[in-house]
């Protein structure tokens, strides 16, 4: 079972109280983009085995979206943070590096 702390309301929520929203920090390509860019935005995901950033919604709770950093292989959670961010904040990056020294934000 995956437990994520909702950073909006502070509840330690079970994954069954949450709705998964896919990969976080996607760059949106819309009108004016190339077909390749639009395809990548809509469909292509790295599907990382390891450190991963995700969108979650506290559906059976406060109803708000938030972001989570976790390891998809071990289910270890590095932290949760505001959905109003375009990149993982420094404290999340530091928490990941403390556990995964080889990891860098670019990968």
């Amino acid at each position, binding site marked *: 079972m995956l437990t994520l702390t909702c950073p909006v309301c502070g*509840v330690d929520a079970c994954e069954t*109280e949450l709705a998964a929203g896919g990969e976080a920090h996607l760059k949106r390509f819309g009108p004016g983009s190339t077909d390749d860019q639009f395809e990548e935005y809509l469909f292509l995901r790295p599907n990382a085995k390891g450190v991963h950033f995700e969108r979650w919604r506290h559906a*059976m709770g406060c109803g708000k979206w938030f972001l989570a950093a976790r390891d998809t292989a071990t289910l270890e959670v590095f932290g949760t943070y505001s959905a109003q961010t375009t990149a993982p904040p420094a404290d999340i990056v530091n928490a990941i590096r403390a556990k995964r020294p080889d990891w860098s934000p670019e990968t």
Partner: protein
Amino acid sequence: MSELASALPGAEYEGIVRVTEAGLRGMVTLKADLPDAANGVKAVTGQAVPEPRRINAGDVSVAWMAPDELLILCDHARADQVVRDLAEQLGTAHHLAVNVSDARAMFTLTGDTVKDVLGKLTPADLAALPLGEMRRTRLAQVAAAIWFSDAQTAHVICFRSVARYVFDLLALAARPGGDVGYH
């Protein structure tokens, strides 16, 4: 005028805890910028805006549901007036106040093992849930809000459309012989 009725009038079950439908209850949902709305909420309900997840209880109770949402609990007959008073107090401030009394059902559980009974139905860590704290969660398949007013009394709010489902769940979890002795 139609005769008002709650979802399951008079429904009750006596097992290892007692489950009763709470009857007609007034509920008003307020969506607003809560710091901005605090004075208006105080004027209408007599209650301060609660800290996150907390309930300020009284004749009229106010529960924190989300950073931009409160649930005001009052007499069923007073709910429309609460909506009107909020509209007057909050004026042009962007907000939404709706009488949701008849869209909801409410149950009360009493007994020594209320936490064990609810614990069969929700993933929430009830051992860590303080008295007077609103926990929005799920009971089996449906959304619910639960809180404990004392160690032997729990309250459950769900959508009226799933009232029978929730009552049956609670009754099943409270069947004699079903005590798990955890909490």
